[in-house]
C-alpha cells in the first residue's frame, strides 16, 4: 500500500493522546488508593488533559487531508453498524470531548465526591469521567486498528497483532510523554510513568517484532493464477491495459526502492524501542526533563517511520493485476 501521511499522522498522534490520558488517569487511580501521592488538579491533570486533547485534535485535523470531500466528513458516522472507520469517526470526537471534560473538571476544581466505596475510597466526578474515558480510549485503539485488521485479504494487517501493536505503541508513546510532562511539572509521578513507559515500550517491541516475523513468513493466498483463473506455473503479465499509471498503480504500491524500505524498518526498530528506553533511563536517573522530552520526540519520529512501514509492507492482492506496463 502507498502510505498516506495524513493517516500516518492521524494514527500516531491520536495514539499519543490516548496514551497520555491513560497515563494521567492511571496516576489518579493510584493516588485514590493512596499508592501514589495526590497531584495538583489544575496544573497536572488539567493541563495534561489539555495536551492529550491537542494531540488527538491534531490527529483529527490530519485525517481531513485524507478525504476528497472533507466538508462531507459528518456523513461518515452513519454506518457504525458495519464499518470500523465509521466507529472510529464516532469514538475519536467522543474521546476528545470526554478528555476535555475530564481536564475541565480538574482545572475548574468543581469535582464533587459522588459516593464512597467501603467507607474509605472517595469516588469523585473526575474519577467516574476518567473511567468512562478509559473505556473510550481502548475502544478508539480497537476501532483504529480494526480498520486495517478487518480487511482479510491484506494478510499483513489481518491479525490480532495489529490491534495489540496499535494499543501498545500508542500507550508507550503516551507514557513517555507523560514522563516528560511529569518531570517538567516537578511531579512525584515521573519515576512511575518512566517505569511504565519502559515496560510498555519493551512489550511493544516484542509484539511489533512478532508481527514482523509473522509477516516475513506470510504465505499469500491469492496468486496470479487465482487472480485470472488460469492454472499454470508460468504466467507473465504483458500489458496492464495502459502505459502511464492509474489509481491502481498509485494507491497500492509504496514506490520506494527496496533499500529505503529496509532502511525504514531498521530505523523504526532502533528509534521506537532501544533509543527511547536508553534516554528514559538516563533522564530518570539524572532527573533531566530535557532528556525525557528528547526520548518522546525520538520515539514519536520513530513511530512515523513505523507507521509508514506498516502501510508499505502490506501487499494488496490487486497488485497481481498490475505487474508490467
Amino acid at each position: 500500500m502507498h502510505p498516506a501521511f495524513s493517516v500516518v499522522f492521524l494514527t500516531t498522534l491520536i495514539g499519543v493522546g490516548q496514551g497520555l490520558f491513560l497515563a494521567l488517569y492511571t496516576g489518579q487511580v493510584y493516588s485514590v488508593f493512596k499508592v501514589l501521592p495526590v497531584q495538583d488538579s489544575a496544573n497536572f491533570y488539567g493541563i495534561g488533559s489539555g495536551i492529550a486533547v491537542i494531540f488527538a485534535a491534531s490527529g483529527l485535523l490530519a485525517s481531513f487531508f485524507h478525504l476528497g470531500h472533507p466538508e462531507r466528513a459528518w456523513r461518515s458516522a452513519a454506518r457504525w453498524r458495519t464499518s470500523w472507520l465509521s466507529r472510529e469517526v464516532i469514538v475519536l470526537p467522543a474521546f476528545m470531548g470526554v478528555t476535555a471534560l475530564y481536564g475541565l473538571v480538574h482545572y475548574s476544581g468543581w469535582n464533587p465526591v459522588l459516593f464512597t466505596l467501603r467507607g474509605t475510597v472517595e469516588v469523585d466526578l473526575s474519577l467516574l469521567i476518567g473511567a468512562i474515558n478509559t473505556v473510550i480510549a481502548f475502544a478508539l485503539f480497537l476501532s483504529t486498528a480494526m480498520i486495517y485488521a478487518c480487511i482479510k485479504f491484506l494478510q499483513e494487517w489481518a491479525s490480532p497483532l495489529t490491534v495489540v501493536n496499535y494499543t501498545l505503541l500508542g500507550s508507550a508513546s503516551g507514557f513517555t510523554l507523560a514522563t516528560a510532562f511529569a518531570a517538567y511539572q516537578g511531579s512525584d509521578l515521573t519515576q512511575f510513568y518512566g517505569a511504565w513507559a519502559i515496560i510498555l515500550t519493551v512489550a511493544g517491541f516484542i509484539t511489533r517484532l512478532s508481527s514482523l516475523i509473522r509477516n516475513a513468513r506470510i504465505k499469500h493466498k491469492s496468486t496470479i493464477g487465482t487472480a485470472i483463473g488460469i492454472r499454470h506455473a508460468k504466467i507473465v503479465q504483458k500489458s496492464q491495459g495502459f502505459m502511464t499509471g492509474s489509481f491502481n498503480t498509485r494507491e497500492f504500491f509504496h514506490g520506494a526502492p527496496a533499500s529505503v524500505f529496509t532502511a525504514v524498518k531498521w530505523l523504526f526498530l532502533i528509534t521506537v524501542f532501544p533509543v527511547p528506553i536508553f534516554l528514559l533511563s538516563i533522564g530518570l536517573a539524572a532527573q533531566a526533563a530535557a532528556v525525557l522530552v528528547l526520548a518522546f520526540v525520538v520515539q514519536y519520529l520513530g513511530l512515523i517511520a513505523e507507521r509508514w512501514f506498516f502501510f508499505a509492507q502490506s501487499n494488496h492482492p490487486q497488485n497481481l493485476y498490475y505487474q508490467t506496463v
Partner: protein
Amino acid sequence: MTQLALVIDLNVCVGCHACVTSCKEWNTSGTAGYMSDMNPYGKDPTGTFFNRVQTFEIGEFPNSETVHFPKSCLHCEDPPCVPVCPTGASYKRESDGIVLVDYDKCIGCKYCSWACPYGVREIDEHQKVMKKCTLCVDRIYDQALPERERKPACVLACPTNARLFGDVNDPASEAAVAIRERGGYQLMPEWGTKPANHYLPRRKTSITIHEDELVRVDNPLKKERQLPMPDKDAPTLDDVTSW
C-alpha cells in the same frame, strides 16, 4: 433474487479494447458527470476508467498462449467494499444486485478501494469521489432505447461477442446458461466474495485420430491401391463376399 452481471468469454476476447473505449465514452457523457482525465495530451496521461483489458502470457514459447483479460467491477454477491463504507455511499441494490456509489454521499476516503481485492474502484482525481462500473445502470433500464440496446455499452461494443449480459440467478438467461455449460468461473474464490461476473475459460477444439482411421481397411473401388491400378473388371471384395 435478480443478480445482473457480465460473463466474459476469454476464448474469444481478442484484446481490442473496444469495451474500454465504449465504456469511457458512454459513462463520461452520462448524467452522473464526466470521468476525468489528467494531462490527457501531455507526457503522462492518466484518467478514470471502469474497465480495462489486460494481457497475460501463459507458458513459455513455443508452448505459450496469449490471454486477453478484461477486468471491471465484478458486482460481488457478498461485496467486501460495501460494509466498510462509513457513509453508506457504497451500496448494493436489492432489486438487481448492482454495486453502486452515491457520488453525493462519497467523502473520498478510498477505504472501499482498499477493501476490494480486485482493484476495480478508482478515485476520480477531479471530482474526488470513488467511481466504478455501474453496469451502465442509466442505459439498461432506459425505455427510450430499443430493447436490444438496453445492455451495457461494453457488451454492445464487443466485436467477438465475448461479453454476455444477464441475470446470473435466472437459470434460463444467456449468461447463466453460458456459466453452466461452458465452465464459467469466478476470480479469487479464496476470499468468499462470490463475484457475480464470471469468466469462461479458453478452450481448445481437438479430435484424436488413430492410424487405422487414416487408411481404409476395406477399399472397394481400389482407388488408393498401389499402382498399377487393377483391372476394372477384376472382382471387388463385394463380388467375392456375400453380405
